[in-house]
Each structure stands twice: as structure tokens, then as C-alpha cells.
């Protein structure tokens, strides 16, 4: 039997935000650019070029392909730094993000997944990474603690279940998430909650009412 296709790591951040959004993008192949994603493309056009350089004793690799066979995930890391310590190099993933740090943990999960891949690929512990936010031009260090690792593995499992079933989860309207979602026009969380059969019957009933006298 052929092994299942790896889950793209970029889907993990979508899945933390909304499992349906991840399914719409990766299963239904719908994609809608909005201002936020367009800015993201410009940012990533710079970081996605594979290459490497060395600065201040830190080896840096950009556009690095990562994968974990155990988790069945794969993707490209914006930047991985290899910090030199006494017993060798410790990988340190850095992910570039538009905007600023967010309340939900989508960015952290995506970064942690890269850490898990790097642990499996190098056989060395990866205790932390960093998120670089373009708007604030700040690096935020993210420790890969037990909580974040568990959330990351759970997200991979949820996404795997959706992909295996080839079924997009139903829309559930959440004002705080849906308003900022670039896919809301394609998802239509409010309309999809309405039963069409009953609506259609009502429409016909109204159409057939006698014309009001003019």
C-alpha cells in the first residue's frame, strides 16, 4: 500500500484557526487572496528562495524542506538557524509572519511542527524556535513545551481525519474568527446554516400568494 500523502505543514496553522478553513483550502482547493494574504506572498517571495549563509557563527538555511515520517507532515521552513553549542549544532526554526503576534496559537503550532520535524531529521532536541513579525519587526521566542507539542500533534491528527474522510467539516459561524477570514465569501458560514428545502418551499408559497390589489 502506498503511504498516505504527507500533510502540508502550512495547513496546520489554518487548522488551528478553523478546521473547515483548512479543508476548504487544502481539500476543496479554494483560495481567496485578501489584503493580508497578498502581503504574505510578497514577504515570502523573499524567504522562499533556498540558500544559506553564515553570520556571527550561526549557520542559516532558508527555504529548507522539512518532513516527519512519524507525523506524516512535510513543508518548507522559511529559515532554520543552526546554533553552535559545545556538543554540536542545535536547529532553531524561524518563521516569518505578516502582522503581529496573535491571541490564537496557529503560528506557534506551525513553528512547533517544524521543530518536531527537525528533531526527527537531525536526532537532536529542538527546544525552541522564533516567530518574526513583519509589522513589529520583532522576534518572539517560542519554547516548544509539552502543551504546545500536544496541541501540535492533536492538530495533525484532526487534519489527518479530515483528509482521510475527504469530508469538509460543516460551517460554524464564529464572529471573532469569521470576520477576519479571507475565505468567508467562499465558506459563507451564515448562509450555509440555513436549510434550503424549507426556504424554497416558503419562497414558492409567497410567490403564489394572490397579487395585492393595486
Amino acid at each position, binding site marked *: 500500500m502506498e503511504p498516505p500523502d504527507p500533510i502540508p505543514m502550512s495547513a496546520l496553522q489554518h487548522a488551528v484557526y478553523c478546521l473547515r478553513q483548512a479543508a476548504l483550502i487544502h*481539500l*476543496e*482547493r*479554494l483560495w481567496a487572496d485578501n489584503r493580508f494574504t497578498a502581503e504574505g506572498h510578497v514577504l515570502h517571495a523573499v524567504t522562499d528562495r533556498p540558500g544559506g549563509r553564515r553570520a556571527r557563527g550561526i549557520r542559516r538555511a532558508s527555504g529548507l524542506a522539512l518532513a516527519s515520517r512519524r507525523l506524516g507532515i512535510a513543508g518548507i521552513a522559511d529559515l532554520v538557524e543552526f546554533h553552535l553549542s559545545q556538543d554540536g549544532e542545535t536547529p532553531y526554526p524561524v518563521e516569518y509572519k505578516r502582522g503581529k503576534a496573535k491571541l490564537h496559537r496557529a503560528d506557534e503550532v506551525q513553528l512547533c511542527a517544524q521543530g518536531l520535524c527537525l528533531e526527527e531529521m537531525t536526532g537532536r532536541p529542538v527546544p525552541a524556535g522564533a516567530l518574526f513579525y513583519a509589522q513589529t519587526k520583532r522576534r518572539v521566542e517560542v519554547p516548544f513545551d509539552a502543551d504546545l507539542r500536544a496541541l501540535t500533534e492533536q492538530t495533525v491528527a484532526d487534519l489527518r481525519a479530515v483528509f482521510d474522510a*475527504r*469530508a*469538509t467539516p*460543516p*460551517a460554524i459561524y464564529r464572529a471573532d474568527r469569521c470576520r477576519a477570514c479571507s475565505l468567508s*465569501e*467562499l465558506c*459563507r458560514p451564515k*448562509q*450555509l446554516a*440555513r*436549510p*434550503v*428545502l424549507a*426556504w*424554497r*418551499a416558503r*419562497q*414558492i*408559497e409567497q*410567490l*403564489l400568494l394572490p*397579487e395585492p390589489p*393595486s
Partner: protein
Amino acid sequence: MRKLLNTLYVTTEGAALRKDGENLVAEVEGAERARVPFHMLGSVVAFGPVLVSPALMGACAANGISLVLLDRVDRFQARVEGPVAGNVLLRRAQYAASEAPDDIVRSLVMGKVANQRSVLLRHLRDHGEGDGQEPAEAISAVCERLARILQRLAAGLTGLDHLRGAEGEAAQLYFSVFGHLVRSPDPEIRFLGRSRRPPLDPVNAVLSFLYTLLTHDCRSAAESVGLDPAVGFLHRDRPGRPSLALDLMEELRPVLADRLALSLLNRRQLRARDFETRDGGGVLLTEEGRRTVLTAWQERKREERLHPFLDEKAPLGLVPYLQAQFLSRHLRGDLDAYPPWFWK
């Protein structure tokens, strides 16, 4: 809301279309006549002898702009498409549904019959008095019979043959009184019953031309949401026929095409001189006449109406896309039925 992107219609013989940076440039005899940025463009329709550069074809494919070539009598010749949008799961669901399409067909026919009836009712409200007893009574009688067809559809009429039969019966009733809606004072502008390939009178010539334009919009809408335009529900599969595009346009025809044809003729924006009769009796729009229709078509598409299911205002030109989107959401299990587009 998704942007209503422009369609560029090129009707001038010998026009040349080429790519210049991120723009489409149209030239006639070496002089630049139009320049449109790709991001503003949804599709390009070229009528007859128009030159298109390979670089422009490539750019259209890459930017998701559909490029359609029609011959001198508006028959479809070729289309340039980029990579297939959407996904194989949606298409499989579409093929599976096409094996048992009863309820989708019911929605499509309901929408079409309801909108045909609305066009007739609107005419009675606006002109009933002036029509004299006889036509007004005939139109009222047809409205009454269309209402009964709607009741039968709503009461659960089943069986594809019955559903298709209801659609055919409604169309025959509707077109039996459609001629009364033509109020042009020009004696040549009349309706002798529905005819096509070729249209045999000016009214049919305008209807056929508008149906062609609407078919292209519906086909692009189906493709842009990832549906296979060749596999329909109401229309049976036939190689080369965009059956799904024809399905999608059924409920839109009375409002987007028929009413526009009537207002162009009745307001004398189209007159006898805008038509020419060919050997064999076929009637076609002249180039000038086509330009008038295309301008009015573009304006009509920008008009906003309340979308009944969406419960939001949307430009009429976006309705094919919205309906294709709702159809795909029904096929993927998000909606329990396909919501028809009822015009009010």
C-alpha cells in the same frame, strides 16, 4: 463580496489583442484603442476575425481570464483555459448527482418557471391596461397556468421526464404570449414564436445573441468554482454541449436576457435598421446592433438586486457565479438542496 470583473468584448474586424506588461492592449490599424489591466479582467470574448497574440493567450490562462473566440455568426470556436480549478472530489460529487438529479432539476425548473411568471406579471402591472382586453387576458391565463406548474413542482412532482416535461410546458406557454410583450412601434420588430439556428425575426435574433452571452458567463462561473461545465442535470449530456452552463442559465434567462431584449426593443434602442436578413430568412443583428446590445448587457450586469438566498445585494453579473457556488456547496454536502434564484 467578490469583485465583478470586466468582460472585454471585441467586435471590430481586424482588431489585434496583445499583452503589454500586466495589461491587455487592443489595437485597430496600429492605433491603441483600449488598455485593461489583467487584474480588472474576468474574460475576453472575441467576435469574428480578431488577432490574439500567443503571449496574451498565456497571460489569460495564467491569470484565470477566460478567452473565448466566436465566429462571425457568434458560434463558439475556441476557448483558452488555464489549469482546471477546483478539485476532483467536487467533480465526482457532480457526476454522482447527475445520475440522480431530481431535486437539483426541481430547483432549476422552479427558478425558471417562477421567473418567467414574474416577467409576465411585471408586464401586466406596467402595461396591462394599455394592452386591450385580449392580450392581457391571455397573459393572465398563462400566469395562472405557470402558477399551477409551480404548485405541482412544490408538491413533489418526481421523475426526470415529468420535471423536464414541466419545464417544456412552461416554456411553450411563456413564449405563446411573449409576442404581446413586444411593444416596439416598428412593424418589422415582431415575434413569430421562438426560433433559433437561425433566428427568423428580430426578437429572436436579440434573444439568441443574449443567450450566447449568458451561456459564456455561466460556463465561466461553473469553471471558476471547479465544476465540470459539460455535465448537467436538466440538460442531458451531449458531447460538445456545455450542459451545466445551460442548466445554470435557465433560471436567469427570463430576467437577464428576455427582459433586457424587451427593453432594448420597446425603448427603440434597437430598431429595424439594426438587423439584417440573410438568404434563407435568418435574421441577425448588425455590428452596430450588437454593439448596442453589448453595452446594455454590461450595464445590466452592474445593476444590483437582492439575492434571495444570500439575503444581500449583489450585481446581476455575479449571480451566475453565486449560483454555481451554491450548487457546488450543495454537491459537497453543505446545503440540503440547491437554492434557486428567484427574481422579485
